[in-house]
């Protein structure tokens, strides 16, 4: 667990999924496997450098009922996303 400052305020991150170096669809696959272990309301931090996540992550959240809190790319090209588990 760690506390992170996002544009929407401070959040508590329960788990981190590191998918850096993995191609589509593995970032979403790893995220889904982690989400299964958590409770609604828990937050996962996802790290990935496959540009596909920019579109895939919002699409995955829309279809599965999870909530994308934030998705940002840093200077090294790594995306960091915070996803809250839905009901």
């Amino acid at each position, binding site marked *: 667990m760690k506390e992170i400052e996002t544009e929407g305020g401070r959040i508590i991150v329960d788990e981190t999924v590191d998918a850096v*170096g*993995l*191609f*589509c*669809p*593995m970032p*979403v*696959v790893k*995220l*889904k*496997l982690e989400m299964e272990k958590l409770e609604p309301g828990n937050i996962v931090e996802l790290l990935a450098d496959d540009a596909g996540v920019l579109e895939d992550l919002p699409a*995955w959240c829309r*279809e*599965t*009922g999870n909530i994308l809190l934030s998705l940002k790319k840093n200077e090294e090209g790594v995306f960091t996303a915070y996803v809250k588990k839905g009901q």
Partner: protein
Amino acid sequence: MKIMKAGKEGMALIFHSGSYDRIYHGLSIALAALALGRETRCFFTYWALEYVKKDRGPDLQLNDEGKAQEKLIRKSIADGHILNVKELLSQLKAMGGKVYACSSSMGLLNISRDELTAEVDKSMGLTTFLTETKNSQILFI
């Protein structure tokens, strides 16, 4: 509610080619479907059956198209960017995907059930597969 609705739209894939690039992509589609919460069934027939045999051949079998990029593919696997078939299959099973072997291909290629890996849920004919996948999108790989 959304998740329940999505669960009814299944994904079905018929793996025919034994070329790694095709199997890799087919299994990637299967994994993406599973990540979306869709029921996913994979039917292995003909040259793809090799990958669900206990004494499977080389993991990187490529057709002519794939051979042109063999170096690139080997490097991507070695660097861990893409998974080999064995890893993809165990990931598929971990996510609840079903693996079926084509019974007539097994007969044609003289492969018995005992020769198939534990990842294979059952062997069946096309009719059974099509009844099981009535509410699924079907892709032929």
